[in-house]
Every structure is written in structure tokens, then in C-alpha cells.
């Protein structure tokens, strides 16, 4: 690595030599430092991953054999509902916000996020929101069980936990909007001189577009669930056919939020993979600008595909064709990305450290999820696949070896930078291979189950589905157990280990690698010099 960087930021460290505040409340409850808040987001997401994972274990244990084994159907429905809400809003989204908090200021040469107090508030809303959501278990009706999509009229039949869930979703939305505002404001106003938009790393770019998606769709979700609330408690009939309302309208509104939400979960994954693949291929990213434009195209297209989630509700042929074709169109910019990542690796001097293993697995397995998505986009085929396990297999391929593998790749990539220590690479490689094998054992058979006609969201099934359900459940138990290695590796790394260099990886390139490992408490109190910016930025 280039040791001149030590001198470059030694001066800046003198300006901002003070470390974290003393005492738990001062340091964490009143945190305004982007690294501390990022850490809290990541820890929160980790806890939620294991909670949501435990719910998945209940689901797969119940489905291990046909017949009712362990839980009653109402509780099973609660588990499918809560598994989704916890994983999406508690796991994946906070994990991305945590990574954004840690990395965005370091990557663009900013001293912190632009609005640190709002940053604190947007994190601390989350524990309260999830306490409220999960507190539904203490009510007579139990946890919400109408599905994470909250479709009326079913969701309106919920008991006391219904308003708690609605209020929790409002709080999560407020938290997400504040987080998104912070990212946009930071990236638009806090970049160091010389870090132009087209010099930003892809992770920052994908987050910028994600943040715009969040601000555009979260108020729509909030509006929809507010109307659900008034339908339930104040006698309105927005979604009640008996009063002139339209329950299908809710589905349109929900998926107008829900489809961009899918890209909110996956666009930052594209950013992380676009950082990791060049590093371990020891080549610059192929087609940087086309990656930016492809991300923006995906963001735009995500707003005009929503009704592909509801082809079977009945809509005019023109509508079906429109949503089928726009959905297929998304394969174009996504294909640009997949080909760019492949071209980056082409003739590269590739090594397979844990971040690269997860990134390459992402590339293959996310693409499988993309292909099954294309199959689902075909209207007549979707009439067969709709509400079957094929859909479950599709979105889990996109979200588990897609979003979650990318989160793990990102953490394995930046963890030595954050802690100043290398982690146990052998154990992380074991973690990868166990995850890689079991995730396929878990989800691939669900394609067969869906094609054979097994419906989703059922606690019992016909005996013809027994074998593949057993295989899938075994994969789930293996995947769940192998994830216990992840916190173990992280805790070991935080406690100590071989000293990490500033550059950490031989091929790493970006402003964050110009800082020490671990970075100073205030990263870029003084903006990096133009020479450092020139050396540490990726664009043109």
C-alpha cells in the first residue's frame, strides 16, 4: 500500500483527536457519530436476522412432514407474516442503513452524515417500532397473521395486534424516510472537493438511488396503512366493497410501494458487489458509468411494474401486457450489471477471499432468482405459478443469496477496516461454503414444489409434496445453524486478531482505504487532498 496516506490523515487526526463519549448513554443512546450509529444499525439487524431466522425454523419444522406437527395454523400464519416483516424491515433494511452509515462518509470524504442528530433519531425509532410489532404476541389475538402484504379484508379481521402493527409500520416508515433524507443530503452536499458525482463509488451511487426510492414510496405505504386503520376503527370504507370501496385498490397501492421496496433491498447489494469484484479481480470495474445508468434505469422501471404481483386479480389485457413487458424490460439493465461484473472478472488476477466468495455466489444465485422472476413475469405462466412455492423460491433466491449474501460480503469486506483486525479467514470460508450449500438445499427444491402445485402460506400439504419439503427443511436447519458462525467470527475479530493494514486487500481502491485501520473516530474532519481524492476515487 501507499504509506504516504498515513501522513495525509495524521494531520486531520490531530484536528479531531477526541474519541467516543464516555458512558453507555452518552456514547450509544445519544450517539451522533456515523460509525457508532452504523454499528447500532448492524447489531440491531443481526438480532432481527436471528429472530426472523428462528421464525423460519418454526415454519420449516412444521413443514418437515405433512400433517400438523408443532404449531396451530393461526400461529403458523403469524410466523409467515412476522418472518417477512422482521426480515425486510428489521433485518435487510437496517443492515443496509448500517453499512451506509459506516461507509458513505468515509467513501466520499465527509466527516460524518449531514444530519447526525436525525441519524440518531432514525435509529432509535426502530427498537420501539419492533417492540410494538412483536408486542402483539401479548394480545388475545396473538401476532398479526394476515400476511406481510396486509391485504384487506383479511387484515381488517385482525385483533388487538392489528393497530400495533400499523403504528409500528408508520414508525419504520418515518425512520426509513429520515435515513434516506440523510443519505441524499450527505451525498449531495458533503462530498469532499474533487469527489464529483461520477467519481463516487458504486455503493454510494446505489444508495443515492435507493434513498430516492425510499422517499418516493414510504409515504405511499404510510398512506395505505393509515387508510386501513381508519377502515378498521373509524368507519371509512376505502377498501371495503360493502361501502363502495375496493379491496383490489389496496393491492395496487401496496405493490406501488412493494415493488420499489424490492429494489430498495437489492440496489445496495449491487453496490457492494461492484466494490468487491474489482478488488479481488485486481481490475477496475468494467463499465462504471453504464453501472450508474443501469441502476438509475432499474430505479425508474421499479415504479411501472407493480401489478405483476397481482396478475390473477383480473385486469384488462392491455394492463397485463403493459406490466408483463415492463417487467421483462428490467432484465436489460440487470443484464448490463451481470455482464459488467463478469467482464470485470474476465482475465483478472482473481483470488477467492470470503468477500469475493460471497460476491461470486451472489452473482450466480441472484441471477437464478432473476431468471425465475422472468418466468413469473409471463402472464399465462404466472396464472399457474401464482401463490405457489415457485414464487417463494424466486423471492428467496433474490433476497437470501442475493441481498443477505451481499450484506455478509460487505461485512467481510469492510470488517478489517472497521476493527483494525483480520478475522479468521478459514472459519469465514467454512461459513461461506456451509451457507452456499445449505441455501441451495433449502430453496432449490421449492421450485419443484411450486411447479407441482404446492400453495404457499399453508401449514399442511398433500403427501405428494413430502420428499422435497423434507429436503428443504433439512437445508433450512443446516443454513440456520451455519449462520451461528457469523457472529462468532465478528466477535472474535472485534476482540483482536492479526493487525489489518490500511489497504487491507491488495486490490482495494477507494477513499475508505486511504484511512487507517481502524479509521479515526472522525474520519475526514478535514477533507482529503485532491491528490488523495485522485488516488482514491473510481470514476472518470
Amino acid at each position, binding site marked *: 500500500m501507499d504509506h504516504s496516506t498515513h501522513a495525509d490523515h495524521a494531520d486531520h487526526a490531530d484536528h479531531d483527536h477526541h474519541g467516543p463519549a464516555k458512558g453507555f448513554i452518552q456514547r450509544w443512546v445519544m450517539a451522533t457519530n456515523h460509525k457508532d450509529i452504523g454499528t447500532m444499525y448492524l447489531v440491531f439487524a443481526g438480532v432481527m436476522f436471528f429472530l426472523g431466522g428462528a421464525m423460519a425454523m418454526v415454519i420449516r419444522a412444521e413443514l418437515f412432514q405433512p400433517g400438523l406437527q408443532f404449531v396451530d395454523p393461526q400461529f403458523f400464519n403469524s410466523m409467515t407474516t412476522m418472518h417477512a416483516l422482521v426480515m425486510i424491515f428489521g433485518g435487510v433494511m437496517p443492515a443496509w442503513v448500517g453499512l451506509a452509515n459506516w461507509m458513505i462518509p468515509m467513501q466520499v470524504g465527509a466527516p460524518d452524515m449531514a444530519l447526525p442528530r436525525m441519524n440518531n433519531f432514525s435509529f432509535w425509532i426502530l427498537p420501539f417500532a419492533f417492540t410494538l410489532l412483536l408486542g402483539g404476541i401479548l394480545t388475545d389475538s396473538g401476532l398479526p397473521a394476515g400476511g406481510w402484504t396486509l391485504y384487506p379484508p383479511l387484515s381488517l379481521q385482525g385483533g388487538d395486534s392489528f393497530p400495533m402493527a400499523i403504528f409500528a409500520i408508520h414508525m419504520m416508515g418515518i425512520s426509513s424516510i429520515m435515513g434516506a433524507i440523510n443519505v441524499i443530503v450527505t451525498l449531495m452536499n*458533503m462530498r469532499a472537493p*474533487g469527489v464529483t458525482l461520477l467519481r463516487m463509488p458504486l455503493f454510494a451511487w446505489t444508495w443515492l438511488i435507493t434513498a430516492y426510492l425510499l422517499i418516493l414510496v414510504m409515504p405511499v405505504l404510510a*398512506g395505505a396503512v393509515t387508510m386501513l386503520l381508519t377502515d378498521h376503527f373509524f368507519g371509512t370504507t376505502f377498501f371495503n366493497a360493502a361501502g363502495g370501496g375496493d379491496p383490489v385498490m389496496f393491492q395496487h397501492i401496496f405493490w406501488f410501494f412493494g415493488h420499489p421496496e424490492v429494489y430498495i433491498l437489492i440496489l445496495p447489494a449491487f453496490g457492494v458487489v461492484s466494490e468487491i469484484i474489482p478488488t479481488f479481480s485486481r481490475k477496475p470495474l468494467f463499465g462504471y458509468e453504464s453501472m450508474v445508468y443501469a441502476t438509475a434505469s432499474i430505479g425508474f422501471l421499479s415504479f411501472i411494474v407493480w401489478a405483476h404481483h397481482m396478475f390473477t386479480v383480473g385486469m384488462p389485457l392491455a394492463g397485463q401486457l403493459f406490466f408483463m413487458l415492463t417487467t421483462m424490460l428490467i432484465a436489460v439493465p440487470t443484464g448490463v450489471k451481470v455482464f459488467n461484473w463478469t467482464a470485470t472478472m474476465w482475465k483478472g488476477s482473481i483470488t477467492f477471499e470470503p468477500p469475493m466468495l460471497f460476491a461470486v455466489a451472489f452473482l450466480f444465485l441472484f441471477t437464478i432468482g432473476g431468471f425465475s422472476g422472468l418466468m413469473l413475469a409471463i402472464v399465462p405462466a404466472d396464472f399457474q405459478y401464482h401463490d405457489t412455492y415457485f414464487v417463494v423460491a424466486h423471492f428467496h433466491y433474490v433476497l437470501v443469496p442475493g441481498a443477505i449474501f451481499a450484506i455478509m460480503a460487505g461485512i467481510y469486506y469492510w470488517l478489517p477496516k472497521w476493527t483494525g483486525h483480520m478475522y479468521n479467514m478459514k472459519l469465514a470460508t467454512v461459513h461461506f461454503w456451509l451457507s452456499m450449500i445449505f441455501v441451495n438445499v433449502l430453496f432449490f427444491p421449492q421450485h419443484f414444489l411450486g411447479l407441482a402445485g404446492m400453495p404457499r402460506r399453508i401449514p399442511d400439504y398433500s403427501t405428494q409434496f413430502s420428499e422435497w419439503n423434507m429436503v428443504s427443511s433439512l437445508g433450512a436447519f443446516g443454513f440456520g445453524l451455519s449462520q451461528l458462525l457469523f457472529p462468532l467470527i465478528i466477535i472474535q475479530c472485534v476482540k483482536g486478531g492479526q493487525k489489518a493494514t490500511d489497504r487491507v486487500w491488495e486490490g482495494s481502491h477507494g477513499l475508505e482505504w486511504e484511512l487507517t485501520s481502524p479509521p479515526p473516530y472522525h474520519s475526514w474532519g478535514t477533507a*482529503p*487532498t485532491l491528490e488523495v481524492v485522485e488516488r482514491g476515487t473510481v470514476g472518470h
Partner: protein
Amino acid sequence: MQTLTPAETAARRRRVRNTALRLAAFAVVVYVAFIVAFINQHQ
């Protein structure tokens, strides 16, 4: 090292505040307008 002058720092603070306020206002307007639109549709 590049440092901002006090005037540049103040200008950046203004830009940060204005951008954040505009984005927050946008979110609130979408939320309220959305519900109002549905109320009108139902009258």
C-alpha cells in the same frame, strides 16, 4: 488538506438544511395528498 472557509461552511449548512426540508416536505405532501385523493374519490 482542503479546508472550507467559514463562508463555505455556512453555505453548505444552508444547502443541507434546505435539501432536507424540501425532501421532508415532499414526503409529507405525498402522504397527505394521497389520502385526500382517496377521500375525494369516495365522496
